[in-house]
């Protein structure tokens, strides 16, 4: 039944905005200060973050521009009109696999960090499974529901992040920021490369824009959605450097959670803010994982429309779980993360740019 226009499978540009922010804000923020800090000197990392952010912003715009050029068409459909159907099918399936790997990686990181900061006796496998099952519950329901969850969770997550920044002001030492602008340009580039990895995830727009009811507004929404994590990450980086100093920061595995540890809640209402912070952060990691899982389900179903959504979810879940649990330790998992970063660059930047180029040159447009 369909009594209300907004009750059905369509989303507005606001959902796109929140989805971009939610999918990008994820586990990347925990390690970002370390990876960027190792590449740059002093507090110069923020330049790298902005630089990498601008690149991500540009490509998010390209992705949105490409997908909104073909309103209400799936990734498979418009890719098929641009580069023949067989190629489109291969691309769609590869994208789906990439998104599944992304989901698996997020699950593994959540499990690892939960084990460190929340409980030490429960095995990683159980924590990961529980998290994945909740993701499965969300994905098994409607795609619109997935996008709407962002609207509910992102404000809470941003509030927690701002709280984290505000409560650390007391420990902020401007001395730690020095020296400024002492990095070589290669360092900035190296840092920016690390940053770009943290800003990936917006490739889900390739899939979800097909549901947008006002595609012409989507590029703007994507750009605004992208700038939220860029600003947030920059502030977090500066705060982490200011609190720890670069030398200490690059020794910590998850510096962002460590600054939450420093916080003392006024009035000593409760202690160990990092547990609370991480708990709230699970919401946005959940969003990242569920959006990418959901997108891969939609992608695969566009190739095999006969498979029921729920069955597909049940088939993919064990694959995701096993590939997420495959890396034997933290180091190997970070390597996997790097590889997912590379494939993210391919799917979020390279392919959309090429496709948009083809569309522009050949003047192909979807029938709006």
């Amino acid at each position: 039944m369909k009594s209300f226009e907004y009750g059905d499978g369509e989303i507005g540009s606001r959902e796109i905005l929140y989805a971009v922010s939610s999918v990008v804000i994820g586990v990347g923020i925990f390690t970002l200060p370390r990876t960027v800090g190792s590449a740059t000197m002093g507090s110069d990392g923020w330049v790298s973050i902005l630089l990498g952010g601008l690149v991500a912003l540009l490509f998010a715009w390209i992705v949105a521009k490409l997908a909104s050029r073909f309103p209400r068409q799936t990734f498979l459909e418009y890719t098929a009109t641009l580069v023949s159907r067989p190629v489109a099918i291969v691309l769609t399936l590869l994208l789906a696999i990439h998104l599944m790997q992304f989901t698996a990686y997020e699950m593994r990181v959540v499990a690892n960090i939960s084990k460190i900061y929340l409980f030490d006796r429960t095995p990683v496998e159980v924590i990961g499974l529980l998290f994945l099952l909740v993701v499965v519950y969300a994905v098994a329901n409607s795609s619109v529901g997935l996008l709407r969850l962002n609207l509910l969770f992102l404000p809470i997550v941003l509030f927690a992040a701002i709280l984290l920044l505000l409560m650390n002001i007391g420990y902020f030492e401007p001395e730690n920021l020095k020296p400024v602008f002492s990095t070589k340009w290669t360092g900035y580039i190296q840092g920016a490369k690390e940053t770009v990895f943290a800003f990936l995830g917006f490739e889900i727009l390739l899939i979800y824009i097909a549901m947008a009811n006002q595609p012409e507004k989507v590029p703007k929404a994507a750009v605004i959605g992208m700038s939220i994590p860029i600003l947030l990450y920059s502030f977090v980086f500066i705060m982490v450097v200011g609190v720890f100093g670069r030398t200490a920061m690059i020794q910590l595995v998850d510096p962002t959670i460590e600054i939450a540890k420093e916080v003392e809640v006024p009035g000593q209402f409760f202690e160990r803010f990092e547990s609370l912070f991480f708990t709230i952060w699970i919401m946005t990691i959940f969003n990242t994982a569920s959006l990418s899982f959901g997108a891969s389900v939609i992608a695969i179903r566009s190739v095999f429309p006969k498979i029921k959504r729920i069955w597909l979810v049940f088939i993919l879940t064990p694959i995701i779980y096993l590939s997420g649990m495959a890396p034997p330790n933290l180091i190997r998992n970070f390597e996997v993360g790097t590889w997912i970063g590379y494939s993210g660059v391919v799917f979020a930047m390279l392919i959309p740019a090429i496709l948009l180029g083809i569309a522009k040159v050949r003047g192909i447009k979807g029938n709006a």
Partner: protein
Amino acid sequence: MFRMLGRQLTKKQNQLETTEDTHGFPIEIFSDIEKNINNIRKILESPSDLTTRIFTIGNTEHRCAIVCIDGLVDSRLVNDKIIKNIQLGITSSKKSVPSSAEDILTELENGVLSSGEIKKANTLDDVMLAVLSGDTALFIQGTDQVILIGSKGWATRSVDEPNTEALVRGPRDGFTENLRTNTTHIRRHIRDPNLRFETFTVGRRSKKDLVLTYIDGIANPDMVGEVKRRIKTIDLDDVPESGFIEQWIEDSFLSPFPTLSPTERPDKVSAAITQGKVGILLDGTPFALIAPITFGNLLQSPEDYYERWWVGTFLRVLRYLGAFLAVFLPGLYISLVSYHPGMIPSKLAFSIAAAREGVPFPAVIEALLMITVLELLREAGIRLPKPIGQTIGIVGGLVIGEAAVSAGIVSPVMVIVVALTAICSFAVPSYSLAITFRILIYGMMFLAAGFGLFGLILGYIMINIHMVNLKSFGIPYSTPFAPSFYADWKDLIIRAPIMMLGKRPIMMQVDDEERMRKGGKS
């Protein structure tokens, strides 16, 4: 049993002198009144409350009969306005006395019967339904037309203050079991000619009246159509309470959340239908239903609007906090005590640990025990006669709590947590939502016991997943949070000043959006 039924049916078939419908009931009305009365007697098997009376009309030769059910009719009306008028009426009029039965019928209908509600019927089925709902049937010798006179008047409860939804400030009248009284309440609130009351009959056997009320021109016609469609699918023997309607037409029977809101307050129904919702009133119950509803609606109380907006806003914020704690507080306690004692400030942690010294159970068993005792107390409190109810509150709450603490079964902190949870769940204005929360508490306690804060946040996420996918008559349950309609947020967690609530909720997609003119009348 079946054979007996069969025998009775054959008995009936032998005795009744007419064509029959599929149920074995006669359908035809004869011009002979005695035959008709005998038929009715036989269908009902002459119950003690069936009143039949045959008498002559005025000083004519014609005979007529009235049939009604004693107790369902207003006997003063039947005696004074029907029997007396028929006996005296035609004689007193100066016109010539009509001779044919049809003429007498017309004369009675137009000139004699002083009752506002008169219908004609010519099948026994219609007559029976009318008589059984409290009308009086008038048979006239020589015609197969029957006059049905509205004479409903049975003992009803007077209009009381609603028990379950008491307010400090606001109208004191509540719905009663009488459908007509209830529709009157709404008419008295809204004197709009576009106010619609659409009547349906539900229940195969009980044949109860159900009234769907909305304002034409405000309510979204598609939504109203959907509600009607669902009401028409209702196929039950009896519909004793609107809860049956709710369960039959709700969107998801698996969901713990209510998607229709029951209420006893006419002002609440009126306010809802001016926002573009529909109300469903059922005969025989004081509980009306409001649909569609969202989660935000369930945390609103009419009083928010009656008090000044600062007060309304404060109470709303308080209620959201209460709703959160009502679900998560025991879970939070369990996860903090069992998994993250480091998060509790050290001084408090010491005193909790000291209080838990000697308690033989882990926190989760302790919490389950106390919450279950609390639920038992609540359930027992409802059953108990009112004077004893208070006693049990004191005995249960104070004595058992105190004794359990001094016996070392539970810690005093746990008693505080459970008491706070109970208070918070009473702060939720909707009883059906509060019950939902009481069920969810258990789920959250188990998640917290197994996985601490991680389990709790996953529980929170799952509740949210459920809410964005649940719909109430096409509206996502999480509206206007998600999908977000920021204009509707003026009347969500905060309650903006009345002058600023100029538009009806956007989420209802109403036909007439303006509720008032900005700045009032010029």
